[in-house]
């Protein structure tokens, strides 16, 4: 990536009158309701994601409290299933995805030298329909019969013939979430294609921009498939169709094929932007250019393409012909090659750099190690004959929490620590940050690592009660869970302090190894940036 110079062009045709009052920031609630400013919308997305993270986390606390000991203590099995279902939906659609969209809103225009997102009014809408979607989902928990209790994967016919009436609300809220995601993705694509500053060629774009561009295409490709799946669930349940009912000529396994055709690319939607973030942070604190920039771009693209041909590895036990099992096993194994390339590139970037370990770097290093552990257990899961043993056990739960919590969520935290001083103009409270990091790091491993053991020993997932041989580890897992949950309150305190603009003022560059357009505008970033495009050399 190249250094850019902020050449202020005297060309008045670029400089419209309405932009004269640069930092006239609207006040009050209407600023947030009617905003079309990418920075405001980014902030809204990030706070929304964090609140959802706490709500979904509270549900995880209910789950872990029930699983602290064998026997039923706190909740009934039916409510337990609602907790696992809504926890999953909230974390995927309410926490991780909106957080990445928030980061894209804040960063993509600043990184490519654009004044805002290309479609600012749609941007406002794509955020403001989200709280409604989650209110609908959460309110279904208070319905007679409770909320959705069929797992976030809503396999038919459990979600059709055998579900409660809240399924209608579930379907409606997923539709709204999907519309929001698609609008966000369209905005990212249009912005990147049309609004790059002069000289910002494709192969000069920061990797965060590249990974988000590819993610946006994945979103547009698969969110309609999810919409199709929920619509078929809706009509099967309420309008007498038989898409997933063998008695009417349908097939329940077809549901799983459709769901995972969405679901597997969805997994990469939640991790590709993380790769981008880590690829921004590691070079900064290594004071060295990213190793293998071009191979990083190609690796991201090949992961995205491969993600469309591996979906049935979630379904090895459904009874597929052996040649299909082989195909999906080999295709899945293949994904580890470009993913490995990424990890090797990060390590090579650090190699012979000049390393310092500020908080973004600490989270990035934790990401590399713990995400790799999740990736390696993913490689084990790809091997069909052993997947028969791992499938639907806590080994899988351990695997996807390593890639999603210590992967995606840690990358989001790394990103917040990295760009927060740019957003507020003040350094965050570094003492609180250290407490947050170390408490999270220790507790998250106490939480998720023993899940590998209970899974291998035979504990199925999604059960409210378990056999006695799993009791010791579950106690530790629950204690780790409570500690991890509490650790996030430290983060909350830090964020509140940062938003009140407490702390030492920072320079424009903030970190002494940071490169890229966003580090050349003042800190805090002005309300409007790049009214006149910078020229990238």
């Amino acid at each position, binding site marked *: 990536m190249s250094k850019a110079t902020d050449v202020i062009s005297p060309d008045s045709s670029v400089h419209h009158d309405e932009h004269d009052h640069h930092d006239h920031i609207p006040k009050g609630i209407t600023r947030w309701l009617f905003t079309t400013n990418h920075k405001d919308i980014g902030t809204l997305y990030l706070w929304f994601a964090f609140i959802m993270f706490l709500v979904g986390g509270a549900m995880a606390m209910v789950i872990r409290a029930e699983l602290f000991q064998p026997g039923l203590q706190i909740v009934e099995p039916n409510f337990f299933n609602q907790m696992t279902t809504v926890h999953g939906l909230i974390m995927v659609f309410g926490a991780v995805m909106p957080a990445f969209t928030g980061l894209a809103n804040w960063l993509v225009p600043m990184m490519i030298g654009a004044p805002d997102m290309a479609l600012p009014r749609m941007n406002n809408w794509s955020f403001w329909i989200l709280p409604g979607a989650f209110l609908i989902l959460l309110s279904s928990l208070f319905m007679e019969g409770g909320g959705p209790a069929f797992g976030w994967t809503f396999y038919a016919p459990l979600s059709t013939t055998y579900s409660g009436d809240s399924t209608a609300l579930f379907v409606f809220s997923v539709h709204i979430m999907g519309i929001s995601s698609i609008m966000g993705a369209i905005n990212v694509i249009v912005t990147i294609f049309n609004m790059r500053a002069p000289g910002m060629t494709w192969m000069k774009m920061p990797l965060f921009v590249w990974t988000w561009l590819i993610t946006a295409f994945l979103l547009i490709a698969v969110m309609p498939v999810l919409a199709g799946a929920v619509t078929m669930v809706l009509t099967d349940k309420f309008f007498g169709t038989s898409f997933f009912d063998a008695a009417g000529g349908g097939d329940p396994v077809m549901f799983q094929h459709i769901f995972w055709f969405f679901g597997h690319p969805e997994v990469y939607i939640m991790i590709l932007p993380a790769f981008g973030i880590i690829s921004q942070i590691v070079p900064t604190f290594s004071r060295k250019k990213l190793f293998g920039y071009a191979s990083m771009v190609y690796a991201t693209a090949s992961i995205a393409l491969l993600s469309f041909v591996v979906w049935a590895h979630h379904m090895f036990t459904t009874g597929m012909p052996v040649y299909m099992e082989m195909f999906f096993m080999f295709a899945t194994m293949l994904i580890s090659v470009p993913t490995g390339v990424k990890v090797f590139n990060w390590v090579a970037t650090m190699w012979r750099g000049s390393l310092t*370990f500020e908080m973004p770097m600490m989270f990035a290093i934790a990401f590399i190690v713990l995400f790799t552990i999740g990736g390696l257990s993913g490689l084990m899961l790809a091997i069909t*004959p052993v997947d028969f043993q791992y499938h639907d056990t806590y080994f899988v739960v351990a695997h996807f929490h390593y890639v999603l919590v210590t992967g995606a969520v840690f990358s989001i935290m790394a990103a917040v620590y990295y760009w927060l001083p740019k957003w507020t103009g003040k350094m965050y409270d570094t003492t609180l940050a250290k407490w947050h990091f170390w408490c999270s790091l220790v507790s998250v491993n106490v939480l998720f690592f023993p899940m590998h053991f209970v899974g291998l020993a035979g504990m199925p997932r999604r059960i409210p009660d378990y056999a006695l041989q799993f009791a010791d580890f579950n106690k530790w897992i629950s204690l780790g869970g409570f500690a991890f949950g509490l650790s996030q309150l430290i983060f909350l305190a830090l964020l509140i302090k940062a938003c009140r603009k407490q702390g030492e003022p920072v320079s424009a560059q903030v970190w002494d190894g940071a490169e890229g357009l966003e580090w050349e505008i003042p800190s805090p970033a002005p309300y409007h940036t790049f009214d006149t495009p910078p020229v990238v050399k």
Partner: protein
Amino acid sequence: MKQLTNVIAKGAAALPFLLFSHFLSAQQAAEEVSSLNLRRGATDISGQVYDLHMLMFFICVGIAVVVFGVMFASMYLHRKSRGAKPANFHENVKVEIAWTVVPFLILIFMAVPAANTLIAMEDVSEADMTVLVTGSQWKWHYKYMDSDVEYYSLLATQREQIENKFEKTDNYLLEVDRPLVIPTGKKVRFLITSDDVIHSWWVPDFAVKKDANPGFINEAWAKVNEPGIYRGQCAELCGKDHGYMPVVVIAKEPAAFEAWMGEQEDIVRQAKEEEQRLLSMNMSMDELMKEGERVYNTTCAACHMPNGEGLPGVFPALKGSKMALEDQKGHIEIVLHGKSGTAMQAFNKMLSLKEIAAVVTYERNAWGNNTGDMVQAKDVNDVAMGN
């Protein structure tokens, strides 16, 4: 190769044990080691799967050690506080080709044994006997295809243990009233299907986990080497009591299995005769209510709840319901045949005429449903015959 993995496997089995030994007393150690890792199991296939698992595990550990080793070395050697000056390199085609090609070769090394094991596992041909396994909410049904023997297998753990009123016993949640019995040394084929939602029949010691899909039949097989009791669980979320539908399989020597089979066939014959005899007999209200309560609590209470109030919005209440108070024929019919499009199953296969008579009587007289109706086996038979 196999020996090598065996040796490494033994070392590995000890490794996590050493790491976590602080919360295991020495005495427990021998039993507790298996709560950390996959089991070798009781069939040749499950042994192969275990070897494959350990092979994968060590390759992954090896990769992790190398990658993290380099990274941690860099974090130590190349830190700014030690005066490290950043180098300038940022690409190297040879290195990049190497770390694309080498992982690819490792993958091929993994794929070959994996494919061989998979092909062996999926070969269901030339089975010595066949058992039809049918899942339903929340129990398993086993039917021996070469005889009349078929029965349901329900969780045997007492409700009071689950509710923490009694102390939990050793096989808590992993015990059933009637386990599946199969012979050792014979290739047993399992046909797996479901009556309602998707379940998954899993016995870890056989390395068999296959989904039970409604309307479709899956196949799996096991040839068990050692007699013993093998325990597993339903592995696919199947609704409220998904955690309470264990699988227990007893493997017996062929001679012992034949003897057991003979006994079961006798029991089936006697039960049929008993059924006929009961048609011409009437039970007293007390007998009906007592039997009905037993059947209700094992079969119906999971959904309709022990107090008959159901779960509002999910499972309808029987207490005060129109069906239980007025429509006696409809009541018997729905118990016999279920209600399509809902979770209400057909119980004509699972319960005897006497049991259905008793449970319908119970539901019409318990919890304040004081209709005074008595239903006899004959009445149930009449409805079943379409009279």
